[in-house]
């Protein structure tokens, strides 16, 4: 299939470019790339819920925070093994997503958005107030990037920036591949059906609420993974990860890039991080210009940047093509 190989080649090229970044660019660009990859994991997972299943959540920062605090507390109290920490972080996010999701998926549209916002802010104030455990608003400090010990045989250090870069790159590639496969899988098609027409999905025999919960928990897992990795990157976890303004970031990023494609949220994430940094270099009033940029993209690129650009290039549209 021509389109399939074309995408695979493009993905391979991007992966190679990402591998080269730490060698050919400065340390700060490598750091920004890590931030873009973290936001990419968060947003590509989130878009499984918004773009694929059609549910707008404003509480996914809570699962991001669950991942970060899960890893952090595990590291401080049990073991600092990064892979175990990430696993615990993702597990914590999945559990929290299961609880919040079970409550929220009975609603849709604005009520689902408001309910997830309320749940997210509950987690935020819980983390803020549980000072003894989470360190309150100072954040959970003392998270260390210990080397990965593989069954005592080898120690892979990830403390240094370059090594940690590949640690994140591995999870980023894994996440994008997983999201791609999910979108292409029977499960992905069922989710798309729910987005397009939830009532008809029920009449097709799809237990809609259970699938929505599955998509919710899945996107929560991606958020937890991104949170755990940020905790390792910045050596701390902060209540503001659960704040609704942070939960709004994957929404903004997916819309910027384009909801209906796999790469939309990734491109949106790159724009979000890079443009904020570039604007800050020219002016202190970065919020003004960033706001104006958002307006241009919302009104100018109606289907998001990727949606509009790919529409321009694609002559014969292969329907349903990513």
């Amino acid at each position, binding site marked *: 299939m021509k389109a399939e190989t074309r995408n695979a080649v493009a993905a391979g090229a991007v992966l190679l470019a990402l591998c080269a970044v730490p060698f050919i660019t400065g340390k700060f660009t490598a750091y920004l790339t890590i931030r873009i990859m973290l936001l990419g994991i968060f947003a590509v997972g989130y878009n499984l819920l*918004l773009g694929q299943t059609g549910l707008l959540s404003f509480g996914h920062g809570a699962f991001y925070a669950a991942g970060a605090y899960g890893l952090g507390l595990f590291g401080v109290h049990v073991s600092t093994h990064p892979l175990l920490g990430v696993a615990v972080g993702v597990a914590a996010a999945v559990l929290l997503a299961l609880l919040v999701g079970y409550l929220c998926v009975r609603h849709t549209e604005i009520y689902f958005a408001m309910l997830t916002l*309320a749940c997210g*802010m509950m987690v935020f*104030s819980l983390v803020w107030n549980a000072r003894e455990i989470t360190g309150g608003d100072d954040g959970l400090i003392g998270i260390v990037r210990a080397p990965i010990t593989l069954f005592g045989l080898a120690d892979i250090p990830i403390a240094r920036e370059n090594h940690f870069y590949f640690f994140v790159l591995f999870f980023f590639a894994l996440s994008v591949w997983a999201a791609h496969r999910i979108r292409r899988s029977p499960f992905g098609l069922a989710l798309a059906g729910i987005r397009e027409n939830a009532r008809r999905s029920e009449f097709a025999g799809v237990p809609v609420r259970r699938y929505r919960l599955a998509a919710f928990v899945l996107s929560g897992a991606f958020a937890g993974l991104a949170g755990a990795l940020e905790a390792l990157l910045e050596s701390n976890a902060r209540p503001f990860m659960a704040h609704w303004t942070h939960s709004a970031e994957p929404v903004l990023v997916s819309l910027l890039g384009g909801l209906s494609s796999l790469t939309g949220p990734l491109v949106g994430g790159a724009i979000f991080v890079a443009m904020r940094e570039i604007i800050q270099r020219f002016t202190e*009033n970065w*919020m*003004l210009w*960033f706001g104006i940029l*958002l*307006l241009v993209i919302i009104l100018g690129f109606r289907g998001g940047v990727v949606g509009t650009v790919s529409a321009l290039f694609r002559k014969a549209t292969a329907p349903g093509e990513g």
Partner: protein
Amino acid sequence: MQSYVHVILAGLSSGMFIWLVASGLTLIFGVLGVLNFAHGSFYMLGAYCSFTVLKYLGAGYWAGLLLGPVGVCAAGFVVERFFLRHVYRLALPYQLLLTFAFVLIFDNLVKIVWGGGALSPPTLSFLGGTIPILGRNFPVYNLFIIAVGPAVALLLWALLEKTWYGRIIRASSSDREMAASLGVRVPALFTGVFVFGTWLGALGGGLAVPYVGLLTPGMGETIIIEAFIVAVIGGLGSLKGAFVGALVIGVLSAFGTRFFPAFDMFLIFILMAGVLLLRPQGLFGAAR
């Protein structure tokens, strides 16, 4: 006894204050179906404009209160007419994103025009001062706010229920296409309602100047969340719900802060989640 009365009074004044902000938000959502994040910015702009009229043009407080919000209506007009109008047909996230962009822009503009530092308004001559209630002073202005709240509610009720104009607004909020097919110039009506909602938000800002006694860039961001909570609990789109919701939240948080020290926004978000779970349309909202 004294503490109970003062807690209730404090709750009423803060509740009515949130109602003033939530009223514009709810009206706009009810008619246009748009959840306007930037409503907090219009509140902030209302405060800054009234402050400017008060301080620099030497006009009295009341002139500030009336002229200030008018300036903000121009901003509201521009936002709806040239930007929001293009996203009505788009899905909910796009509308939220558009209003979110304006929050960033207005916060930064205020800092550029009025500077980053906190501004303190001159104290009120008329309606200033306090009167002792049960041995403790209570600001006269807060009593005025407790009175203004219901007055605005009555004004809105009268406008929507009694006037011909109100009937058109209610008609197009329940069925946009039908109203349009009956010859209602819906786009113009939407602009009018949005500007009126903005005026309400700006009025809230103007009234806030003596109440909060402080103006800082981004001051709208904390009040908009409280207004959201109230709008949701009262029932999205229902003005009556927003009014009652504001009273409940105001008095509840006043009691919470006074008698349950562990009280926090956490309890208010539990209430919000509870209402959404058990009765999504809120206390008075129309059933979904």
